[in-house]
Every structure is written in structure tokens, then in C-alpha cells.
């Protein structure tokens, strides 16, 4: 998988994950699974940002 393909795949998964979390919050409230889906979404978001090596470390602070 090239770097661009990797970023595209993660971006697609991030969008899916956020939608799943929002649906869960809408139907069941801010429950454990919703919180942890949000956590996974942030993990992917930071990965996409840090894979782009033009960002300094400070961007994640």
C-alpha cells in the first residue's frame, strides 16, 4: 500500500467510524461503545496527521 493509498484508506475508515459513533450517540446516548469509537477515530486522525511528515510534533500538542 502506498502512502497515498494508506492515507485514503484511513480517511475513509475515519469517516465511517465517526458516522457509527454519531449514530450510536443518537440512539443510545454517549455510552461506553460510543466513547471508545470516538477514541479510535482520534487514533486514526492522529495517524493520518503524523504520517504527513511535514507536520511538527507540536501539531499533536
Amino acid at each position, binding site marked *: 500500500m502506498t502512502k497515498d493509498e494508506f492515507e485514503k484508506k*484511513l480517511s475513509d475508515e475515519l469517516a465511517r467510524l465517526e458516522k457509527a459513533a454519531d449514530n450510536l450517540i443518537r440512539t443510545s446516548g454517549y455510552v461506553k461503545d460510543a466513547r471508545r469509537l470516538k477514541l479510535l477515530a482520534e487514533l486514526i486522525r492522529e495517524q493520518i496527521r503524523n504520517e504527513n511528515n511535514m507536520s511538527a*510534533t507540536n501539531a*499533536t500538542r
Partner: protein
Amino acid sequence: MRIICLQLTRLGDIYQSIPTIRGLLRVYPDAKLDLIVRDSFAKGIPNLGERVRIFELPVSDLLQPFLKEHATPEASLSHLNQWIESIKAEPVDLLVNLSFSPLSSFLTFELASENTVVRGYSRTTDGFLDIKDESSAYVYAQVGVGRPNRIHISDIFSMVAGVDLIDSDYARFQENTNDDLVALFSEHQVNKPFVVFHVGASSPLKTLSTEQWRQLALRTVDELKVNVVLVGSKSEAITQSGVLREGLIDLCGKTDLNQLRKIISQAKMLVGGDSLGVQIASCVGVPTINISTLSVNFWETGPRATGSYTLWYPNLREVPLPHILLCIEGVQKNSKPALPYIQLEPGFGMIYSIHGYEIDSWEWDLVRAIYSGKDFPRIERHLVLEGFSRLQELADLGLEQIELIKTGKNVSVPLSVLNEIDDLVLRVLGFCPEIAPVVRWFQTEKSMIAPGSREQVIENTEKVFKSLKEFCVTMKVNNSIGHQLGENTSWK
């Protein structure tokens, strides 16, 4: 007692967290400390003693399922649940989040229980960012590249953790030479004494080009008669053979992180961009020449080993190599380098003195006035005075709305005006960027107002607007009287 320290940024920040970890262990002598880091950085962490365990956030395992063709979150979610429950199996008394990222805030919330004291970023029960302490609020508002902060990040970490550091917390690591390092030195003909050039960085914008490093290394060997060892990743290697000439060894891509730390610990000096090499040198007490530029904030991440200097250039591609050579020679001879330079000073917080550079300190002076009660800086531009006047009007407007809300009659209009004020503050910032520290302080303080009763929320909101008004009034009065009083006096 169990302490968890969460450090999910890069290895350089992990190294800069070490004084705080030592401080926590000193302040809580009966405590054990669990340091949580990303899996990819765990192996590069030095031995922090028997009381410290390293836990790896399994980023690779959590991401892997998402890279499959028909990915679903179940596998990652299950893995994450197991990992969190394993960490929470033992109660956590103090959880210090040193990461300042959204991810770390979500994780902090998940790892804390009802009895856990939390410091740093977390989340509220309904998912909003929950900034737990004033130091973290300061980070949120004023720290980072392009921001005016001048307090070193390793000291900010200690403030977030709530510990006052002492000299021994910064003490250098004693690294023992191990057999594999001896073999590595022998294989590559490394002769002591030597200077390490760390040619790598997380971004090419933070370091010299390969050709610049090659020229600098060759001239250091030829003109200063100093052995030079180059370290970095494989892609940063300057030569394939490893040896450029006698006295110049290229070990890029030939060391692991532990070897890198040991090599730096044995060097007379480290020269490098504002990156991991500088932070390792600070931990192992090796004098450093930090080559810095706009894309980093040397005040926050510069070197801390005694005898260190920072050389700052607006464009790293146009660095005058003789200036760096003169600085290397100065450090080698324990004398002052050629101007301009930035010198490490003993102390805590703001630890650098500027020599020969013209660096505007207006925004930093404003930050110090806001957070530590120092004098507000003089306003030199009419537009800035206008900016503060407009901010004061908005503070007055906000306070009027709060009074109307307190009456309890038809609160929808004053509430909508309060929301409008946020946008109007940004418009003022648009024409007067100098007021940014005050605006960011205002936004952060408002975001820190915790959910509560209507009266509590109104009271806390009123406090923030009153403080905003006070800042604006002080700035304006100080400015008008200050001009009459002369240079070194102020009304405040």
C-alpha cells in the same frame, strides 16, 4: 499508590517528560508509576528504575483491522476494550496526561475512575474537552509553534503534574558502554573524543539538508580537527560506505534507539536540529548546538544540558556554515561563540538569553501579564489600542447580557447575544492579531466552565467577562498613563 503518566507524543517529548516522572517519584516515595506510550516508541525509553513500568498503547494492532478490505471496527474495539480493562485492573490514584491531544483526552477519561485525581486534558461525561488544571489551560491557549510561550516544555510538564522540580530531577543519565556499542565503534573505526551530528528530524524543515550536513561535517573535521559521528535514519545517510574520510563516520541507519542514546552520551558535543538528538543530549547531559528555525519554538524544546547554545536562522537552507563552525569551536574551547546566539541559562521556565538577535517580546509580555500579573506591555500601534477598546466593549456587552439573564425574564435574547459575542471577538482578532493571547485566554477560560447549576454557570461566565474587561481597561489605562510616566514605570 499508583500513578499513570500518559505520554502519547513522540520520543522527544517522552525524554522531556523524564524530569517530571522523576519529580513524581520523589514527591510520592511510596508510589509506583506506569508510563503509557505508543508501541513504536517503547523500545527507545531508557531504564527509569524499578518503580516505573512501561505500558504500550498498541497503535499498530488497533489500526491493522482498519486496513483490511472490508473493515469493521469490532476487532479494534474489542482489542481496545481488553487493553483498557487490563490497565484499569489495578486502581489508579493519580493520572497525569502530558500529551495535550484529543486522543489522549479520550483515553484519560477511559482510564480514570471515580477516585482518580486527573491532571491534563480529559473529557466531560458528555464528551467535551475537560481541561483539568490551569497549566493545561495555559498550554491549550498559548503553547506551540507560532504561539508566544517561552516556558520550556519539560517545565510545563512538571506544572501540569503539579510537582516542583529540583536539580536532581534533571540529573543526567549515566549510560554504561555495552559490548555491542564497543563492537559498533570498532567496526566503524569511531575514535574518541568525538562530536555527534544528528542529521535527522521528524520534518526536513527542522534540519539542514544532506549536502549542508556533509559540508559542515567535512569542514569540522578538516578545520577544527574534531572527530565527527553522524547519526540519523538510514534514509538520512550521507554516504553508503559509512566513512567519508578519516575522522568522519556515518552511522545513519546503523544504530537502534538505545545505541543512539549511548553514543550521544559519550560525545563531547551534539549538533542537531530541534529534534530527538537534542532532547536525548539534554537527558544525558551533553552540551548541544541546536540549529533552530521558524517551524519549531526553541523556547519550548531547546537544549537543557549545561553549556548548550541555540543558533536560530529564518531559513535553514541559507545557513552560513562558518557561523556554526565558530560556535562548535567556541563550545569545544568552553568560550562564548560568535554572535548571534541563544544561550542556556540556569533556572526554570524561561531558560534562554538572547545575544545578537532582535526578537519581539510584546506578545510574550502580554502573556506574562495575563497569567502571572507582570506589567502589561506598552501599546505602540493605534490599531492595537483600538483592538483592546473593541474587546472591552464586547466584555461590557457580555456583562449586560448576564445581568439580563440573572433577572430570569426572556433569557433567549441575551443568550443569543452572548453567542454572537464569540464571533465578534474573532472579528476583532481579524483586524488586530496582536490581541491573540487575550482572545485565546478568553476562549479557553470559557471552555473550562464546567457544567453545573444555572447560577454557577452564570457566575463563572460573569467572572470570565469581568477579567476580560479588567485586562482591557488595564492595558488602556497603563498605556495612557505610562506614556506620561516614562520608560520603566507603569500604572499596574
